[in-house]
């Protein structure tokens, strides 16, 4: 049955204590955690758990969801001290009887588990996140060697969930820092053989709020639910910026 079909029965089930961050800035100044005892079934995910609470315990709970298969990037949350996608995190893999669910840290809370992603999208937009071509377009597709396509493989997997942005100490302290996701996107275009705007792109990331704020802390890599290596991309951009200083392309 689909995700919302089952209402687990308490009898004979394992029970977990669930603590969920609650905050509605439109009605209260104080945030708090609410606790529930929830019956859990074998393959129940954190998202199932949230739906269970929404439907059977507290209709006021707010959270984001869409695809429930780890591709849309809606449900990145901070679960038991780790960044996770709620939909692909099974409770049994948490290996804990107490489950703490918080919104992505360091982002403004709109309500409960829903955070304001605007700063994240703003950085995304800044890097000119689209292919820029100057020459006339070919009649058919651009030809691209499979090996060149492979260079983008890691970066095009990004689902823009915001976990890396939320985990990066530089993003906490410097609101102008582009952040891992935007820089990964940037690198995706700089390595794309079809893109012809490397000169402009360098100007966007080669400055003190750009790549140079990355201190290879690897929090983003630890947080990424899609196993993307953001640091790899950022380091690539750094080398490109230096090469450019010495007349490279």
């Amino acid at each position: 049955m689909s995700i919302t079909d089952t209402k687990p029965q308490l009898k004979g089930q394992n029970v977990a204590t669930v603590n969920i961050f609650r905050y509605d800035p439109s009605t209260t100044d104080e945030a708090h955690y609410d606790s529930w005892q929830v019956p859990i079934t074998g393959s129940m995910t954190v998202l199932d758990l949230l739906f269970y609470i929404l439907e059977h315990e507290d209709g006021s709970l707010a959270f984001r969801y869409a695809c429930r298969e780890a591709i849309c990037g809606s449900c990145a949350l901070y679960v038991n001290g780790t960044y996770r996608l709620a939909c692909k995190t099974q409770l049994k893999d948490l290996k804990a009887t107490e489950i703490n669910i918080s919104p992505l840290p360091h982002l403004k809370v709109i309500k409960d588990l829903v955070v304001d992603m605007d700063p994240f999208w703003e950085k995304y937009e800044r890097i000119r996140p689209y292919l820029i071509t100057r020459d006339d377009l070919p009649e058919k597709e651009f030809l691209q060697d499979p090996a060149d396509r492979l260079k983008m493989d890691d970066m095009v997997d990004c689902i823009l969930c915001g976990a890396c942005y939320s985990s990066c100490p530089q993003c906490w302290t410097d609101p102008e820092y582009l952040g891992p996701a935007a820089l990964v996107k940037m690198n995706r275009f700089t390595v794309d053989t079809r893109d012809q705007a490397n000169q402009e792109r360098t100007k966007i990331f080669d400055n003190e709020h750009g790549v140079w704020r990355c201190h290879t802390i690897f929090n983003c890599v630890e947080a990424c639910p899609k196993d993307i290596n953001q640091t790899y991309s950022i380091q690539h951009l750094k080398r490109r910026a230096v090469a450019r200083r010495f007349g490279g392309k």
Partner: protein
Amino acid sequence: MPSMYHQVLIVGGGLAALRAAIEAKDAGLGVAVFTRVHPVRSHSVAAQGGVNGALANAEKGADDTIEKHAFDTVKGSDFLADQPAAITMTADAPKRIIEMEHWGCPFSRTSDGKIAQRPFGGAGYPRTCYAADKTGHALLHTMYEQAVKRNIKVYEEWTVLSLVVENGVCRGVIALDLRDGDIHPIGADAVIFGTGGTGRVYGRSTNSIIVTGSGMAIAYQAGVPLKDLEFIQFHPTSLFGNNVLITEAARGEGGYLRNVNGDRFMEKYAPKAMELGPRDIVARSIQTEINEGRGFPGGYVALDLTHLGAQKILERLPAIRDISINFVGIDPIEKPIPIQPGQHYTMGGIDTDVDGATTLKGFYAAGECACVSVHGANRLGGNSLLETIVFGQRAGAHASQYVKGNGRGRPSEDLLFDKLHEVRGRWERLRAADGPEDPAAIRDEMKATMIEKVGIFRDAQKMTDAVETVKRLQDRYQKVHVNYRGRRFNLDLLRTFELGMKLQLAEVIARGALDRKESRGSHARTDYKDRDDANWLKHTMAHHTPGGPRFDYKPVEITKWQPEARRY
């Protein structure tokens, strides 16, 4: 507060909606996108296998043509597709796919650098262009990038509740801002819906939880007929347990379907095409195996990829591997994946022509919410992504033309606010609803009823039951309660509101299916096993009336290929 106004108002944030927005923006019009979730969260992102187009890039497909693609589409549709529409779509296909490539879509490549193409079900040639098994993700992100490039205004987490109609012309929408719970009237010269299908009316759906069909229901309520809604596609391979999609590409790349005895049972049902039969046939075959006791305990069969080898799986099907490791703990490199058929796609939808225009002037639809009809009774894998980019573009272009020729400018405040008061009244009544019925229980029963009784195999008895059950559920829905009455991000209220629309659609689906006394494509009746071209080669049109749907029928446009028996 005065109303908002945009020349072209797009509802939805998926591929079709964004493509339409881009087209209208490029035509120089004021465009805004209203979307329930951020555009990249839309369900298009979950499409996996690929997008069809007769590019003839693959070695084995060198003599592929647009016409062959059109024929495969029509044959796949069990001849219910309108043939001019299918020809239009397949003719536009190469243009649109190349355009996506020029916009930066990271397609997988052939060794000589062209867009790679793989075989897909029901197609005579490898013509499905792909980006590993994340094609929807690659396309949607590229499309959103283009929207960002064009500085298209996006209203995120706004959901449209109703259309505003004046003298048979669509003049705008009434929309809810989920973040503060306010309802706003928004005027527009043209409204384009790209709101997606209605998968979540069914249990065992592969669709996103946000695929509620509310766009279809809103159009339906505004008097636009819904076409062929009884044709619901069941995808042969969805993960056993939670019905996450396992792409057809798994079979396109050479995967086998096996029953509990280890037999490749498809040789009984489609001896030539085997696992690459069209979806309706493969889904029925799997269900037959399960029903006749040759499935695994619990009711599933195995999708065996182990013989493909680790390299091919890692290169071509990495997301499938992740999904099966994440959700059922099985690595397809080592063990077969447990799969069962699951609801996947709504072939029917808002009745439109090839330009996305509907019977309501100024109102357009494209993508899964629309029914042009190119999919007829059964959609081929890889044609849905194609539909979004082709008809998204066409709807955008035609709507722009319409606005330039007939634009009436800002609608009167009276009109908008009258409608606003009506919708807000409904909304507020529901917000205060305090009846005995639990919306979640109603929804669960609806989903279970639909999958069991209007599912893969249908008969009069089951469908009569389903219609009655849905009617009863609609009555119960009148006495529903909501648990939370706050304004900000009230999911409980929104989901309950959407449930009302889902129940309407469920009724249209079940009644349309009950009336159609034949088996065609995905609509397989055990009491009418054969296709009946004499009586039923026609589109079902459902019109909204206060007492439920009123049905009439519209002929299928057959211009090139006469219906023939479907063998694979």
